[in-house]
């Protein structure tokens, strides 16, 4: 079958891509061989709107369609030439993936200081089919991993003790955005001087604008002084009955008190009440890895595959 390919053009295309990801996710037994729709939302409302990894959704994603307009594959990048491939399993073929990668190599590459072009993507360590395919295009495995954790929520959850003096609750109203933003700074930039913090919390309003955002799944721990000490922001998709923790962090001055576990547990408990049966978290660094290892049951590893050329 002949497929047509085009970049996302307009709002309707984006929303069709969202539902395409949902269908593919179910067909893949809700394993992350393609993106969870929550990751697409986070890509648009955080990586693009806040981090400006590319100038627009249109510049960052392309679709493949059948002659009757059905989406069968999509590719996007996370800036810095990092790719994600999403392929409908019934339409998979090596030719299609070659075509997608060729498109990415032409449109989504980055350029290193020495002028060489590069592009890379994560591949599950057990996905030999894709590994062989990218190898045939000159990709090489590099150091760098992603740990993709998941937990089925059909069994009762452990109940860790709430750290003394902290209140685990939903995120408050707009008056709390400054505190929430500062907590993120202290969670992810604690090695930087505080003077580097720009005090702009508009990024958080972008996170809240995503279609899957729900304030009652945006869990925070407030410290005895009322400031936010930790957070676990979850996007839940009730179509696939699955969720992703898109932001989890604890401010440096509140580390090692079990707060990460406490906010995550509360989030998982609330997900269960809403009918969610599986939750995902991804770690690329050790503190997050340790937290997810303690909370989530299963894990798949991705390796990084890089192609460089002149």
């Amino acid at each position: 079958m002949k497929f047509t390919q085009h970049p996302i053009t307009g709002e309707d295309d984006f929303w069709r891509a969202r539902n395409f990801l949902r269908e593919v996710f179910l067909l893949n037994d809700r394993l992350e061989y393609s993106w969870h729709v929550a990751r697409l939302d986070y890509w648009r409302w955080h990586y693009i709107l806040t981090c400006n990894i590319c100038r627009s959704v249109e510049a960052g994603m392309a679709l493949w369609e059948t002659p009757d307009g059905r989406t069968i594959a999509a590719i996007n990048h996370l800036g810095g030439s990092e790719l994600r491939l999403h392929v409908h399993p019934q339409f998979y073929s090596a030719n299609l993936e070659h075509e997608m990668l060729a498109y990415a190599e032409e449109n989504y590459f980055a350029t290193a200081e020495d002028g060489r072009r590069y592009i890379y993507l994560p591949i599950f360590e057990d996905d030999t089919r894709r590994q062989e395919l990218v190898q045939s295009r000159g990709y090489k495995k590099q150091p760098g991993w992603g740990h993709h954790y998941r937990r089925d929520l059909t069994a009762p959850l452990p109940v860790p003790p709430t750290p003394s003096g902290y209140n685990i609750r939903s995120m408050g109203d707009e008056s709390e955005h400054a505190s929430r933003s500062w907590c993120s700074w202290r969670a992810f930039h604690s090695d930087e001087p505080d003077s580097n913090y720009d005090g702009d919390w508009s990024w958080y309003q972008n996170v809240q604008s995503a279609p899957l955002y729900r304030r009652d799944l945006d869990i925070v721990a407030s410290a005895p002084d009322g400031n936010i000490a930790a957070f676990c922001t979850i996007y839940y998709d009730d179509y696939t009955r699955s969720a992703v923790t898109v932001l989890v962090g604890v401010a440096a001055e509140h580390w090692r008190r079990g707060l990460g576990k406490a906010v995550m547990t509360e989030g998982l408990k609330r997900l269960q009440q809403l009918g969610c049966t599986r939750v995902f978290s991804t770690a690329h660094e050790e503190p997050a890895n340790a937290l997810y290892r303690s909370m989530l049951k299963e894990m798949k590893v991705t390796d990084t595959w890089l192609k460089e050329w002149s």
Partner: protein
Amino acid sequence: MKLTLRTCDKEDDFWRVRNFLRKIFLLSDRLEFSAHVALLDHWRWHYIETCHETAPFDQVTSIWETADRQIVAALHPICHDEICMYVHPRFRTSALEDEMIAYAEEFHADSFEGGKQILYATVFPEDTQRRQTLTRCGFEYRRARDFYWWRDLDITLPDMPSTLGYEIRSMGTEAELPARSWCSWRVFHAEEPNENYDGDYLWYKNMQSAPLYRRDLDIVAVAPNGELAGFCTISYDDYTRSAAIVLEGIAAEHRGHGLGEALTIAGMRQLKRLGCTRVFATANEESTNAMYRLVMQACRTADHWVKIWTPDKG
């Protein structure tokens, strides 16, 4: 095609019916020929969990499936004598609808005076096939009573009316549940003595357990004295990019201030930010209808079709 009828006896079935409704909603150009998924949620988490209008969903919901387990139709009662039927447009035949009605008559009819049975369904006048099916099965037309409003959100929204002294905001935390519940009482039971109110606000937690519930779409009006004066609770489905207002009301002592309009417009603004492109609301009485006439774009009326019969004793 041979279809299999069975009862939805597993939790998973309920969620499959939800996604089935979403698909046929899109195939019906997002008009309410079948229910919006938000209304199925409201049936389960309010009509069943709180009002006990029917037995639990897994005892009263039936589906018709193809050999490869694709749902093509679903049926359940919504209260003691009313049924909802959902049929995939590509599989819709008179034979299937006849079978569904026969099944409903056998399992979902209620007792009526004189040892008779009663069953009714709501049907849009333009749904000729359903009307013909019901006529053939002995149902009779009753005058229209239900108004189905909608508005597309990609056109300019109406201006927000002034609500001097009242604050329009999202529903608060659990501490606000008693006030929210009391407000509902003053909306829907204003003519009853206040001592009839039982003070139980746990029903509201059921509302908040529905999968589409979002507190930022549960809009309330707060009076100058701090009490809740009105509410507009909206369920948004980002799969179909559409939403339904599932509960809306103004406490009797706060009516006449434009609060209903303000709450609905505030909800629409929030929906628009989340990518919603169409919102629905249903009115069964004139005051609500008048308010939706101000803020919505189009309306269809639905008729009731009723059958009352003496059961065959044989």
